[in-house]
């Protein structure tokens, strides 16, 4: 082999190495910062969850055993699942429809765009308080409207009713959360070049077809990210539910985050709460693996 080719190969390799180092340098600040701040808390939580008083090493699986055997835990997992699935689904549908609608040149588009962002501007505790107030059986305005329109005979107990409580919480949560998905999709929609649509129109594709073949693929990456984040956030949703129902009636609107809070801050069962939180984290990890793979595999 000639020296020239060798030298070319070496410089190519060096170039690749330099490239990789550059890549690591780009991600380093974020990774290091996160690692530095979160390592200790994560470690403490993990250790707490394995703490068992009275065992020789002070460690054991007792908390997890208690957790998995608790019927309340599984009920809460189911309720969290329902809450998250419906919330995220509604966010997606509503967000997508709105993004598509607001991407058109419409009359009053700018104020509309501001308007639909408003719910996100309200902290979720405040949203919970306001919705609880609106759904109040005595002073609530929604019941007033329903009564005036003769849609119901007597005020509905939205938050107190075993049948309506979870729905009420989801209603408030959809209101509060859809702007995120909508804005992200709107930003993503605008990155899709118009020429693609024009070309498709020339080829005779109808609106539904161009949606399926141009819009969706173009939005895919952004959509996956938005959904992944929204799912994680909704699993962690706390303030809204705590303010509206406190987990009630009974335990019918308890989700993992409210349970962890109760066990930790009201019952002072630190070890048990840590185990539950670890279970919650594991659940989130499981949910997000497909998302991560979808993103990473593309390359």
């Amino acid at each position: 082999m000639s020296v020239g080719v060798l030298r070319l190969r070496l410089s190519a390799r060096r170039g690749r190495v330099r490239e990789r180092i550059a890549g690591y340098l780009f991600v380093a600040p974020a990774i290091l910062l996160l690692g530095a701040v979160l390592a200790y808390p994560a470690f403490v939580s993990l250790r707490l969850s394995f703490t068992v008083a009275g065992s020789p090493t002070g460690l054991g699986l007792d908390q997890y055993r208690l957790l998995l055997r608790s019927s309340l835990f599984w009920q809460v997992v189911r309720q969290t699942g329902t809450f998250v699935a419906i919330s995220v689904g509604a966010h997606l549908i509503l967000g997508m429809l709105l993004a598509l609608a607001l991407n058109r040149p419409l009359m009053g588009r700018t104020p509309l765009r501001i308007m639909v962002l408003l719910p996100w501007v309200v902290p979720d505790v405040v949203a919970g308080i306001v919705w609880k107030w609106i759904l109040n059986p005595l002073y609530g305005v929604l019941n007033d409207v329903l009564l005036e329109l003769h849609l119901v005979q007597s005020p509905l107990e939205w938050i107190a009713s075993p049948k309506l409580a979870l729905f009420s919480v989801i209603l408030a949560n959809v209101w509060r959360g859809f702007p995120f998905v909508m804005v992200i999709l709107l930003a993503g929609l605008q990155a899709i070049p118009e020429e693609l649509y024009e070309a498709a129109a020339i080829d005779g594709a109808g609106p539904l077809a161009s949606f399926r073949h141009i819009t969706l693929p173009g939005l895919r990456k952004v959509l996956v990210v938005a959904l992944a984040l929204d799912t994680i956030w909704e699993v962690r949703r706390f303030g809204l539910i705590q303010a509206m129902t406190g987990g009630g009636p009974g335990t019918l609107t308890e989700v993992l985050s409210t349970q962890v809070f109760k066990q930790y801050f009201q019952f002072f069962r630190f070890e048990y709460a840590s185990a539950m939180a670890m279970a919650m984290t594991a659940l989130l990890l499981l949910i997000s693996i497909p998302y991560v793979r979808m993103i990473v595999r593309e390359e």
Partner: protein
Amino acid sequence: MSRSGRLCRVVFCALVAGALLFSVLTPARSGELVTLRFSNWHLVEDVWGRSLREAINIFESRNPGIRITPEPISYAEKEPRYQAECAARRMPDVVKLHNFSLAMFFELGCAADLTPFVQRKGPGFLKTWYEFPLKMLTYRGRLMAMPDDFQSIVLIYNQELFRAAGLDPKRPPRTWTEFLEYSRRLTRDVDGDGRIDQWGFSIPASKNPGLPLRIMPIVWSFGADFITEDGRRSAMNTPEFREAFRFIVELATVHKVVPPGVTTFGPQDVRIQMAQRRIAMKIGSAWSYPIVNALNPQLNAAQVLEAAPVPVGRRRITAAWLDAWVMSPHTRYPEEAWKFIEFLTSKEIEKKFFEDNRVISSRKDVNTLPMVRTDKFSRVIVAELEHARLEPFIKEWPEIFDAFATALQEAITGAKPAERALLDAHTRVEEILARRR
């Protein structure tokens, strides 16, 4: 982004960063002053906060070397915050806690031992306070907090509504049977539109820290209790307990003498209902009528509301609210902190708090003052202190009561039949207590 746009942004960032640095680098004040960090949820309330700040000013003027830094906190935040601060050894020097979580803080080691300070004051010092609160604040033989507000739970009712329903306001219901009958008479359609708009009674049946205080008198007076004497087993399956539970649940489900949505009410909602004449009776204590008054001055609460002992079942008994001042175990100024605590629980200041807020303290010498004895509410509350009892001072109490509140909500809303709900709660409490053994 255009060049000028980016420049704009850089300048903006620099300004913000500069402001931040400035705020970070501003040096803290130092000096020979002793600064005590003082935290209490009353500081956030309008009336109580003012009274407390006046007391602070008095203290500072008498103790020029001590400065009090008030740290307002809301009622719901206090336990998580103090706990986190205690774990990091940065708890405020003086905080107020109440019976719901005191046991936990003692057990966590987050309260300083006040016994040496008290002993220094001589043998007669503690005699001024009621024995009962002092006993509750003693943990393993050491006094861990100084008692402050101590008020019994009583029945509060609206005289005018009684009269309008044909009931004698001078004869409040004395037994639970009478109470039920009164409640039914007081639940009516006042404005004639076909819908009930006044109810006889209301109770905050949401999961809030005020609920135990209102439930315990009912349960206890039926002759029942939540846990056995020795604190080892659940007592929620006794016939008496089941009777008490059924009675409370049926107020809502069968007799409908409470407004709809009772399981979502907090104490504030019930006070609003009373202020608006929507309910005729409620369970509360000294704090009730000033707040009701503030909510609706037109009601003229001072005249219209009356207090009476809680109805009697098998025994005459009621619950009590107790709160106490706790000193941080890590305080750098224990002497000064004690001085402040002593000041806050002194006769002069407890008297002031009564004048400002109508709260009853645990000092016998203040409760026997004429101004307390002639006030129609305070009179009843002080008298009932004799029959008052506190909830179990065990770490698991919040969890035990949560099981009960869950059952109550399930039964009232129909999520489960009452018997089953109670049985499930009983089982859960057994599990909780089994952990203790």
